[in-house]
């Protein structure tokens, strides 16, 4: 049985038109390690005669180096294209494969089973309509089966084929097959799939892969390929409203201004009314421009250039939308998030949030809960570790345009990017905007910072002292405070230990609590600077990310980072509070410099070495710096 015609059609044009109109099914294979995902796809392509001869020959050559199946051709090697994959016999990254049969075209993403590479499974799932989930007949439903099912459901996959593989190894047992199918159907009930189709399979021997197997006479359903060819996955949904995320403003000359982008949903015709989402301005479509000439209308998926009737303000990151069904515009929302990075997601930390065309600074204001992927139970959590999934409230620095992910996969998604490494550390699916974003407005006051600081005859500043415990931060800050006070300056000193007695009494010393500790103090410092004060903040503040967050809260030039640099040995020798002794004895956990890291500033405004210098002389150095700054202004 071959899926390729052996004789070329005479009328190639007609054949091509036919080809082009076939529906295309994007699916993934997923499941635990060694369930045979790569082998299954290899088998599918091989049996359907979709593998080229030189690729097969080459397989023999490579396969000889790792003859896992004795004399058999190892079909997994058709997919596992990386050296590390061949060495370890596992799939690390997604492989995309393309094939077509007489009925349909397919793009399959063969995704990794290993938990460590969950991010790559998510990558494949984000664009798929169906998941072929493999289960080893001998193992049944495993935690990785649950994880992948949950992720598939979360990412909007609505159809599942449960490939109960290695059925040959359990004697083609109907009982085993039905037991696993029942287990799965039971557990997947709450995941909201539209269809779940269990098929008994042996990828190794090809049973029920492209044709029904004689060894499973008790199975009456379709073989895998037949099922994939015929499933109605593209259920005609109600027409979605028009969404056009603006990618690029085209201005070849003064007479032309067009907006380029890809229609995320719905359709548009010349003359249709649209609104500019962020401003709410209304206009209409004057023309739809393409290289092949102007067109009257365009539909979901097309990359076009729209010219508007009015001169409205639109730039990249904004969206054109149907006036009758507008997207949300908000700077606070709830989302499901999957975390990819070895360093955990910590609420309060600042990240870059990227939608299809927009990019803003964002913080997670609350991690409401994480989802236990075995029980789907919501569990309290303070941070999200790698591969964990949680529900978060997110706050962005500027409003973004979005829909709920369940309504629109394109306009409801975002990724999270680390500001230092630029790695994609998380991905999210937006649930809904938070109403408080609409109702809490900044209260404009008449007496402002300028007026308050002018009355005090000083320039507000936040002097941020950072350094190890015992480095001398508070001593120097205290000395400086006295000097400034003597000169009639209005100051206030926020000391780490003191604030922890009150405002931050509820916080401990875990990474999460340290982030929150700094966030609160930075906000207080900001209010004090707004009151016109010179604020001295003496906090260990061990993480660069949070010091940068504090810096960004303040006005430009207002934040002065002072690195009180004292070697750890010297701090431990001074040990003014006896903390090092306790920490070294293991009596204090999470002690900076001993059992918790200190990230030294890279470009502080002032870098003070304390060894061999009196605190007062260092304080005077800071005073000098302040004076210089005031003069420059």
């Amino acid at each position: 049985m071959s899926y390729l015609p052996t004789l070329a059609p005479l009328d190639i044009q007609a054949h091509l038109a036919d080809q082009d109109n076939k529906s295309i099914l994007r699916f993934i294979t997923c499941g635990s390690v060694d369930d045979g995902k790569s082998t299954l796809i290899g088998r599918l392509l091989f049996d359907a005669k979709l593998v080229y001869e030189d690729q097969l020959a080459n397989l023999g050559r490579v396969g000889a180096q790792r003859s896992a199946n004795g004399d058999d051709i190892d079909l997994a090697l058709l997919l596992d294209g990386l050296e590390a994959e061949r060495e370890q016999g596992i799939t690390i990254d997604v492989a995309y494969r393309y094939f077509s049969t007489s009925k349909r075209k397919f793009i399959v993403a063969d995704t990794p089973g290993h938990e460590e590479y969950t991010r790559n499974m998510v990558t494949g799932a984000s664009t798929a309509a169906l998941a072929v989930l493999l289960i080893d007949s001998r193992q049944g439903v495993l935690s990785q089966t649950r994880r992948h099912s949950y992720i598939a459901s979360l990412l909007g996959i609505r159809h599942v084929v449960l490939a109960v593989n290695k059925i040959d190894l359990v004697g083609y047992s109907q009982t085993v097959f039905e037991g696993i199918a029942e287990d799965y159907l039971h557990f997947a009930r709450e995941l909201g799939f539209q269809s779940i189709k269990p098929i008994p399979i042996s990828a190794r021997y090809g049973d029920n892969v492209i044709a029904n197997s004689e060894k499973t006479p008790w199975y009456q359903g379709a073989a895998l390929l037949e099922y994939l060819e015929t499933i109605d996955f593209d259920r005609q949904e109600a027409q979605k409203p028009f969404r056009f995320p603006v990618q690029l403003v085209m201005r070849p000359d003064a007479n032309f201004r067009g907006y380029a982008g890809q229609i995320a949903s719905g359709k548009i015709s010349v003359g249709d009314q649209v609104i500019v989402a962020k401003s709410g301005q209304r206009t209409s479509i004057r023309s739809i421009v393409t290289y092949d000439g102007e067109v009257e209308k365009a539909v979901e998926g097309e990359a076009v250039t729209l010219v508007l009737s009015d001169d409205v303000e639109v730039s990249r990151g904004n969206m054109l939308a149907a006036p009758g069904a507008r997207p949300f515009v908000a700077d606070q929302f709830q989302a499901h998030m999957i975390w990819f990075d070895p360093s955990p997601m910590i609420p309060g930390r600042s990240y870059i949030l990227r939608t299809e065309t927009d990019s803003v600074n964002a913080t997670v204001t609350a991690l409401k809960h994480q989802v236990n992927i075995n029980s789907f139970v919501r569990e309290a959590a303070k941070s999200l570790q790698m591969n964990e999934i949680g529900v978060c409230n997110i706050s962005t620095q500027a409003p973004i345009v979005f829909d709920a992910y369940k309504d629109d996969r394109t306009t409801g998604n975002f990724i999270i990017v680390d500001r230092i490494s630029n790695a994609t550390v998380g991905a999210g699916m937006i649930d809904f905007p938070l109403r408080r974003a609409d109702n809490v407005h900044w209260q404009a006051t008449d007496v402002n910072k300028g007026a308050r600081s002018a009355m005090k005859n000083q320039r507000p500043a936040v002097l941020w002292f950072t350094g190890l415990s015992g480095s001398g931060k508070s001593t120097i800050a205290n000395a400086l405070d006295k000097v400034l006070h003597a000169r009639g300056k209005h100051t206030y000193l926020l000391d780490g230990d003191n604030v922890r007695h009150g405002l931050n009494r509820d916080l401990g010393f875990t990474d999460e609590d340290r982030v929150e500790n700094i966030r609160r103090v930075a906000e207080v410092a900001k209010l004090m600077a707004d009151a016109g004060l010179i604020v001295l903040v003496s906090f260990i503040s061990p993480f660069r990310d949070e010091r940068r967050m504090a810096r960004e809260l303040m006005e430009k030039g207002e934040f002065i980072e002072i690195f009180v640099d004292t070697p750890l040995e010297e701090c431990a020798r001074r040990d003014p509070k006896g903390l090092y002794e306790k920490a070294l004895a293991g009596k204090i956990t999470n002690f900076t410099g001993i059992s918790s890291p200190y990230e030294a500033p890279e470009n502080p405004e002032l870098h003070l070495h304390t060894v061999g210098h009196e605190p007062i002389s260092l304080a005077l150095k800071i005073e000098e710096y302040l004076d210089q700054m005031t003069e420059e202004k």
Partner: protein
Amino acid sequence: MSLSHLRRLEAEAIHAIREVVATFSNPVVLYSIGKDSSVLLHLAMKAFFPSKPPFPFLHVDTTWKFREMIEFRDRMAKERGFDLLVHTNQDGLDQGIGPFSHGSNIHTHIMKTVALRQALDKYGFDAALAGARRDEEKSRAKERIFSIRNGQHGWDPKHQRPELWKTYNTRIRPGETMRVFPLSNWTEFDIWQYIMTEDIPIVPLYFAARRPVVERDGMLIMVDDDRMPLQPEESVTERLVRFRTLGCYPLTGAIESEAATVADILREMLTVRTSERQSRLIDRDEAGAMEKKKREGYF
């Protein structure tokens, strides 16, 4: 109404090309003159209409390309009015590096990979668009559409960024560069079908003609100039051949074929039993050859 398969691929590619222009300051297209490059050029013309593509096209010339390719390149630059940059590794040229004298491996490394790195550094390009497709080769099947390269242009397959939906992470640090493959999801067949539908000009070497060839290592190597040394037992014969893929002429095998039009080629493809990369010598010099080259900066 939903889009046909080719229109979907076209829109996806245009979106990726525009994304590069929206987020990078100095992008370039790696123009290798082959069929994929021709499609990429065509898509770039579409993406920015009524403007011209706002980036130059860079050809890394090993000096061993088919003569017809070079003629075609210069004609296209003139007709389409794009900014063509040509770079050759002068050090390699001075050392006389060539496929016959040094073998395919060294030649490809010095004259293609190193040359490409030189050119990217010389012009300070931060993003390079190229026509690579995932269906070409197993390690390419694993590559992202936006694929980050470190300061040495190296690729680390184990640390690719997850790439979800079409929300691309385009951020890079100084020194890093991005390779972008808008045709990732196209197959060889899609390329030909699109060339036919859109009537895209391609190098005539893709069409069957009588050409002088030598049979060597099971491949038909075309004698494109007098730099090709013949072994005593070899002889040049004229055969009706064409090319499925184009590279350096000594490293690219011809296939016997009568396909003289794009429609013929498509008809032939429906019955062909070997992959296009079969005629590329450089993929075969060792297991994992392509991956290794890509790690070093080849694309």
